[in-house]
């Protein structure tokens, strides 16, 4: 490497979170170095679906996801075609009357926050997505939700950061040192502030960060243009997929601009390897076929897995670590890192530069008391 250089900010990890932080830091006029051991956007970012979604598990989650979603909407005109950003909306599917009531309550919660949402009864749902199985009670439509292709979105932020003088360094961060960090090859990086954005591996640099990898499977079909129009998620997702202890699957479909359909989702704790597990994949696909029987005969081209960086209270860690000073976390986004990359970068930079933030950032501070949230009833 060239002669040691003092950076204002060094960011460990060039996933979508690290790239978004780098773009925000560079835009704030900070001399920014982004450090990545692998391919930028090639970790959890590349494995995810790319659902830009407002989620209301908790008020804090709703605030961050909605804020982030609006930031994406502002960025939309600047996003290159490769990002494939599309506001297709999410349909939260109600299987029965109980879930229909849940959907109605969800709509009220959205309305209370000024987030557009509408109810589709069984007939309207069948018209919106004719390939769903008959007999569903209906759905709540969140029309401002969207989808994008995450690796290209990460690259968009990376290019934006570089255009403002940031640099990308290939290397693996080994440990935090006073005013900087040290790479595994011995390189020392001097930086005023260090941001840890290494997702599932953040605890290696920030001991005590309560982040555990939560494995997920996805499968993508061949092209079937016009077969699916919205992101589809079962409302049971709130019950099944969010259980903290058990392996679970939930129906989650995404239309890609290419006409391909992404099929999810599964959640597992404690899975050691990244291999596709046929049993878990089969369970996930059976769930999907229950909701959309026609999927069974569609041709699929690839299954893969990824690890979500999960925290006990399902909120990310955004802010300073307790010790040492000048070290910041931007990690632990679980399955919402693509959505909240924009909001995370804005909140972190506000704290780092002492500016006012658009929404309160205290719920996401790493110093908060994290407790496992209770399950939905």
């Amino acid at each position, binding site marked *: 490497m060239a002669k040691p250089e003092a950076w204002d900010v060094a960011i460990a990890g060039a996933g979508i979170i690290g790239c978004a932080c780098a773009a925000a830091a560079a835009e704030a006029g900070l001399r920014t170095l982004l450090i990545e051991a692998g391919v930028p956007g090639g970790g959890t970012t590349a494995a995810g679906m790319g659902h830009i979604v407002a989620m209301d598990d908790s008020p804090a989650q709703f605030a961050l996801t909605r804020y982030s979603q609006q930031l994406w909407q502002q960025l939309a005109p600047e996003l290159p075609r490769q990002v494939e950003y599309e506001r297709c909306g999410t349909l939260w599917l109600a299987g029965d009357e109980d879930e229909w009531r849940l959907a109605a309550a969800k709509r009220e919660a959205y309305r209370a926050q000024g987030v557009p949402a509408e109810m589709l009864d069984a007939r309207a749902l069948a018209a919106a997505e004719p390939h769903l199985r008959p007999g569903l009670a209906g759905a709540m439509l969140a029309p401002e939700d969207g989808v994008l292709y995450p690796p290209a979105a990460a690259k968009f932020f990376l290019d934006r950061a570089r255009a403002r003088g940031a640099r990308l360094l290939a290397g693996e961060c080994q440990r935090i040192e006073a005013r900087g960090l040290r790479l595994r090859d011995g390189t020392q990086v001097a930086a005023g502030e260090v941001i840890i954005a290494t997702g599932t591996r953040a605890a290696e640099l920030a001991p005590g960060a309560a982040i555990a990898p939560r494995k997920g499977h996805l499968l993508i079909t061949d*092209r079937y243009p016009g077969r699916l129009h919205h992101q589809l998620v079962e409302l049971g997702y709130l019950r099944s997929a969010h259980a903290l202890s058990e392996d679970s699957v939930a129906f989650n479909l995404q239309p890609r601009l290419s006409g391909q359909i992404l099929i999810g989702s599964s959640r597992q704790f404690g899975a050691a390897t990244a291999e596709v597990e046929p049993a878990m994949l089969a369970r996930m696909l059976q769930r999907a076929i229950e909701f959309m029987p026609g999927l069974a005969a569609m041709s699929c081209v690839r299954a893969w897995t990824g690890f979500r960086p999960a925290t006990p209270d399902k909120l990310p860690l955004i802010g300073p670590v307790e010790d040492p000073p000048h070290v910041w976390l931007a990690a632990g986004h679980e399955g919402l890192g693509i959505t909240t990359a924009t909001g995370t970068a804005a909140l972190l930079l506000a704290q780092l530069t002492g500016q006012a933030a658009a929404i309160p950032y205290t719920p996401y501070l790493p110093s908060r008391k994290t407790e496992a949230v209770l399950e939905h009833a």
Partner: protein
Amino acid sequence: MARAAITVIGAGPAGLAAAVCAAECGRRVVLVDENPLPGGQIWRAKKNLPAIETEPWRRRAQAAGVEWRTGCQAAQATPERLWLESAGEAETLAWEQLILATGARELLLPFPGWTLPNCCGAGGLQALVKAGLAIAGQRVVVAGSGPLTLAVAAYLQQQGARVLLVAEQAAPMQAAAAALLLFSSPARVRQAWRMRDALRGVEIQAGCWVEAAEGAERLQRVRLRRGRRRWSLECDYLACGFGLRPNSELGQLLGCALNAEAGLQVDRWQQTSVARIWCAGDASGVAGVEAALLAGQIAGYAAAGRQDLAAAFIARRDRQQRASRRLLRRLALRQELRRLAADDTWFCRCEDVPIGEAQAYASWREAKLQTRCGMGACQGRICGAAGRFLWGWEAAGVRPPIVPVRVGTLALTETGEAQ
């Protein structure tokens, strides 16, 4: 759900021989093959008529009680089970020993116009003709490299095609030396002699290659190059393949190590780096039909625990493999082939990614992530092999399904239940 003692994937020469030998040792054998009739690519059936060469093996297999799964594709595997799909039906199959005889596919390289309809692989056009394509009277240019192109040209000519030219990219001296090696065994002499008869009157040029294919909506002419000379030929079909590459995906999915030829690494008994998994034929390194038959017999006997019977074939197999390697070394692909494509030539045919966009990235992984090359329906089989030749890109690991299948097939649990 059925239990199987020994499961063979692929009913080409290697798979047939392996299945026969294992079954003749009294073992239960299931032979899985994607085609409706046995023979693989080299002994591909002509419509409903099996190739004559398969007959003795098919008879022995029948006598020894080999169970056939024809028109059946293996999509996914664990150390205990295979997920199979045939004509829309899915099942899982337990295996104890697995013999991979998955053969090889053609290396196809990008040049301007290579995506035009009627631009086929060399073996590709032959397969289409065997499947009923009427080729009589059609003008065909056969190009690329290797013994397959000559065999294809001879076959097409016999079927009434007008083969205008066979273009071998290797330099004349190298091609001549390779041609001599075709006479290295009596079987090869007979084969070469038949080929020579069929190719009488056909122009064969060494040191010659296709620079571009042209036409509107379909192939109309090819632009050829030999040394400094450049010319065009009007034609109906181009059959262009640059040799064969092993089909190693199923083995890779099961964790088997690769060798330098990107085939599955095997020991002298054809065992892969993973216990209970064997590999025979071109899937372990392209060496041709004689070597495949010998390797298949070794794998079949060895998987049945009869190394004593397998041992008799080892010296002959090694000799055949050495002869094939000598021949293929002579036909090494020339540098010019790396520069045929223009920036706007498609690199990935599934996703329509131009070569100029793909080569801006440092690795296969990065190019895939950012351009989607290799993420389409062929799962990188075409552009992955091309990227390896063009830029030395190493392919990433294999993910299921190893061939596109119905979602419902992967929705089967291990015990083969749909729900």
